[in-house]
């Protein structure tokens, strides 16, 4: 791969903001469905075509993600569903799956998700202007996880620090490993307590889970809990920020968001298509393969171009138009096949509930006029900040 010259060599997709990502993708697409680009300073293969990306997600012979994830996440995160394959993955996933199924997630909405949305709106109450990402979008999915785990409110900010650091391994290995150790030490006490006196809460359910004679060790529970933050909080907050930015700039969409549950489901799905939070997903090839007109060698890094595939005009006509009425069954935001995102239902319910509660509490909410709002980042993509006026024109 090193002999390959990346296209757009001035752009590094690991570090640069790329606010014009969709335009860059349009230009890259003219060079082929799979092209070399720069990532962490080295050339990698960016897969953009929808059909090819779908097949890559389903192809565990050539694109088994586990080897790559072991390199970039196992040192700080431990062994997780992302680093497991085959039978081990099937059984491990089955152990935690009931906590993420539609019927269970529906119960989280009223008991957990909706009260948190209201709590964050309470903090915006009475304010003329609020920075919405830090006031709502970012803490919202994070608090869903900490409350799900039974973390006391006073400890939440400490958890936020650990959560941010744990996934920083490629940039700060020592810091990431230290954060995971501190997180584990804290959570171990909660696991011990739940094992001794189990209830109906999330951690108790993990300690009690059984499937085909298997159960979860403390080590596996700790790794799984650690994974919840990057997988469930960072992604959802990024997408929530993108979604609100798009809606608040469009009064017709705001009106639709005040409509029915089905309307909100459609809006959220279109937001997930249009600006997926994991815009480009790093994956290491597990075997040599001729793919989309290029030779990808075992050990080459690829970027699964989810944003590109979700905006492939052959599948999604006029893809840059935000249109909640389009057929979105083919979006690849949550991946595909047996490693499909476990938390998909939680993420969707969080986003739908956020729309319902925010527009109910602040029917006149709007963006502060005159701001330039940019979606930034290529691995995790969202809006960094945006000032809203909860009560409209002051």
């Amino acid at each position, binding site marked *: 791969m090193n002999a390959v010259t990346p296209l757009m060599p001035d752009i590094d997709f690991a570090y640069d903001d790329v606010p014009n990502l969709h335009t860059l993708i349009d230009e890259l697409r003219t060079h082929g469905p799979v092209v070399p680009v720069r990532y962490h300073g080295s050339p990698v293969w960016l897969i953009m075509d929808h059909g090819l990306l779908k097949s890559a997600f389903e192809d565990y012979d050539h694109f088994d993600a586990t080897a790559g994830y072991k390199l970039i996440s196992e040192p700080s995160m431990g062994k997780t569903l992302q680093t497991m394959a085959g039978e081990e993955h099937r059984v491990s996933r089955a152990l935690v799956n009931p906590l993420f199924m539609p019927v269970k997630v*529906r119960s989280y909405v009223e008991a957990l998700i909706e009260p948190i949305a209201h709590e964050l709106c309470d903090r915006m109450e009475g304010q003329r202007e609020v920075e919405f990402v830090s006031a709502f979008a970012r803490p919202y999915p994070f608090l869903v996880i900490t409350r799900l785990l039974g973390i006391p409110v006073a400890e939440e900010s400490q958890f936020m620090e650990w959560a941010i650091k744990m996934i920083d391994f490629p940039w700060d290995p020592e810091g990431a490993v230290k954060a995971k150790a501190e997180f584990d030490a804290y959570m171990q006490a909660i696991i011990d307590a739940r094992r001794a006196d189990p209830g109906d809460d999330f951690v108790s359910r993990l300690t009690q889970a059984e499937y085909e004679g298997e159960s979860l060790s403390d080590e596996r529970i700790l790794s799984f809990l650690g994974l919840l933050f990057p997988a469930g909080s960072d992604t959802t907050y990024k997408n929530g920020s993108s979604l609100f930015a798009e809606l608040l700039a469009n009064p017709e969409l705001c009106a639709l968001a005040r409509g029915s549950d089905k309307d909100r489901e459609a809006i959220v799905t279109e937001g997930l298509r249009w600006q997926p939070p994991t815009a480009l997903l790093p994956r290491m090839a597990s075997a040599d393969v001729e793919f989309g007109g290029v030779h990808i060698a075992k050990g080459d890094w690829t970027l699964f171009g989810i944003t590109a595939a979700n905006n492939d005009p052959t599948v999604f006509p006029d893809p840059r138009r935000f249109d909640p009425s389009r057929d979105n069954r083919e979006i690849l935001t949550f991946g595909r096949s047996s490693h499909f995102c476990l938390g998909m239902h939680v993420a969707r319910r969080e986003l739908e509930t956020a729309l319902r509660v925010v527009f109910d509490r602040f029917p006149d909410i709007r963006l502060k006029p005159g701001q330039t709002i940019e979606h930034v980042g290529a691995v995790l993509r969202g809006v960094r900040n945006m000032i809203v006026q909860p009560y409209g024109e002051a």
Partner: protein
Amino acid sequence: MRVRFIDPEGHEHLVEGEAGENAMRCATRALIPGVIGECGGAMACATCHCYAMPPEGAALPEPSSQERDMIDGCIDIQPTSRLTCQVVLGPELEGITFIVPASQV
């Protein structure tokens, strides 16, 4: 072979199914409302749940334990609940009906 879907609004859709394909693919190909199949048929998303009514004299194979576990987590399940990604169409199922639940979520 003919496959009948009743969507959440009660509308009937007759679709020409292909022997060997699964019923989720048949439904999504025909854009049947309410059948999503977002994971592509890996029993990982629980968004292709339907109530299956095979034609008289025919029966579907029992769901695997993994499918059973997934169905248990779906909304408004009934004894006829199936993940349509696990129902493989064949000539013996000519005329099978799938009723799409009011919501997958």
